[in-house]
C-alpha cells in the first residue's frame, strides 16, 4: 500500500464517521455560554400595570426567569407547570418568579395572561434588550439565578415531564436549601 492509498482511505472513513455522528445532532440548538456568569441586570414595565421593575430588587434571592410569548404554542403547554411552581415555592421569601414577555404586543400578552391565569409578575421587553442580554433565541426559555446573582441553569423548551421534575429536584430545591448544586 502506498502512502496516498492510506491517506485516501483514512480521509474517506473519517468523513463517513463524521457524517454518521452528524445524523444524531440537532443543528438548531445553541449551547448557552451564560451558565456560571453574572446574570445581566434588567428592568421593564409589568405587563398589566406598567409599573417599572428592576432586577436589583431581587438581590439575594433565587430568581426563576421565564421567557414566553402569546404566539408561542409550546409556552401554553408549560403554563400550568409554571403556576404550580409558584404555588409550591412562591411562599418562600427567598424565591421569585418572573415572566419576560418576548416579542409580543401588549394586548396579546394581557389577553394570554387573562385566559391562562397568572400568579406572578411578567415584564414586557418591547425592544428585546432583556432577551438579547440573556441570549434568548426561541421561547420558551427558562433561567435560574442563584442568591449571588449567578446564572446556574438554563432550559430551552417547555418545562414539562422530566424537564419539570429535574428543575425542581436538581435545581430549585438544592438552591433554596443551600445544598450543593448537583452537576449533571
Amino acid at each position: 500500500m502506498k502512502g496516498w492509498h492510506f491517506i485516501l482511505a483514512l480521509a474517506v472513513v473519517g468523513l463517513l464517521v463524521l457524517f454518521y455522528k452528524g445524523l444524531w445532532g440537532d443543528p438548531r440548538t445553541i449551547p448557552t455560554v451564560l451558565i456560571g456568569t453574572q446574570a445581566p441586570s434588567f428592568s421593564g414595565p409589568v405587563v398589566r400595570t406598567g409599573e417599572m421593575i428592576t432586577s436589583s430588587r431581587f438581590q439575594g434571592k433565587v430568581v426563576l426567569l421565564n421567557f414566553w410569548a402569546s404566539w408561542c404554542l409550546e409556552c401554553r403547554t408549560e403554563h400550568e407547570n409554571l403556576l404550580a411552581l409558584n404555588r409550591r415555592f412562591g411562599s418562600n421569601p427567598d424565591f421569585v418568579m418572573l415572566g419576560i414577555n418576548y416579542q409580543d404586543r401588549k394586548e396579546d400578552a394581557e389577553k394570554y395572561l387573562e385566559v391562562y391565569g397568572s400568579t406572578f409578575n411578567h415584564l414586557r421587553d418591547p425592544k428585546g434588550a432583556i432577551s438579547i442580554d440573556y441570549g434568548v433565541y426561541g421561547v420558551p426559555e427558562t433561567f435560574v439565578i442563584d442568591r449571588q446573582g449567578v446564572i446556574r441553569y438554563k432550559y430551552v423548551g417547555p418545562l414539562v415531564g422530566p424537564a419539570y421534575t429535574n428543575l425542581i429536584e436538581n435545581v430549585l430545591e438544592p438552591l433554596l436549601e443551600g445544598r450543593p448544586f448537583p452537576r449533571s
Partner: protein
Amino acid sequence: MKNAPILILVLILSISIPFTAAEAATVEEEQIDLQMREIAKTLRCTICQNESIWESQAELAHQMRDIIKERLMKGESPDEIRAYFLSRYGDYILLAPQKSGLNWLLWGGPFALLAVGGLFLYRTLSRWVAQTTITKQEDLPPIDDQLRKRIEQELHSRED
C-alpha cells in the same frame, strides 16, 4: 475588445455617482447605518436557518440591529459590539469564527494546503523534468556532423 476593462470601469463610474453633500446629521447617521450593516453582516441570526441578522426579516434580527445601532451611537467599536453578542450567544453567533485554537484549521487550512501542495507539485515537477532529460540523453544517438547538417537543413526549410 481591448478596451473592455476600461469600458467596464467607466460603466461602474457612471453608475456610482457620488451623492451631493447633505446635512452633517444625516451624514453621521448614514455612517452609523453603514457601520451597523457591516457588523450585522458578520452576525448570525440565531433563530433563522442560515442568515445574517442583516439579511434576516425576523423580529429578533430587527431588534439586534437596533441594539447594534444604539451601541454604535454610544461610541462602542465594532469589535466591542461583536464581543457583546459573543458573550451572550457564544461562538454560534459569529459568522466568521474566532481565530484561535482549532479554528486555525479552518482559517489556515486552505492556505497551508496551497503552500504544501504547491511545494509538493514543484518538487515533483522538478523530479520529472530531471528524469525526462536524463532518459532522453541516454536514448538519443550521439549527433555527428552529418546529422547536425540534416537537422539544420530541415529547420531552415520549415522557417518560411
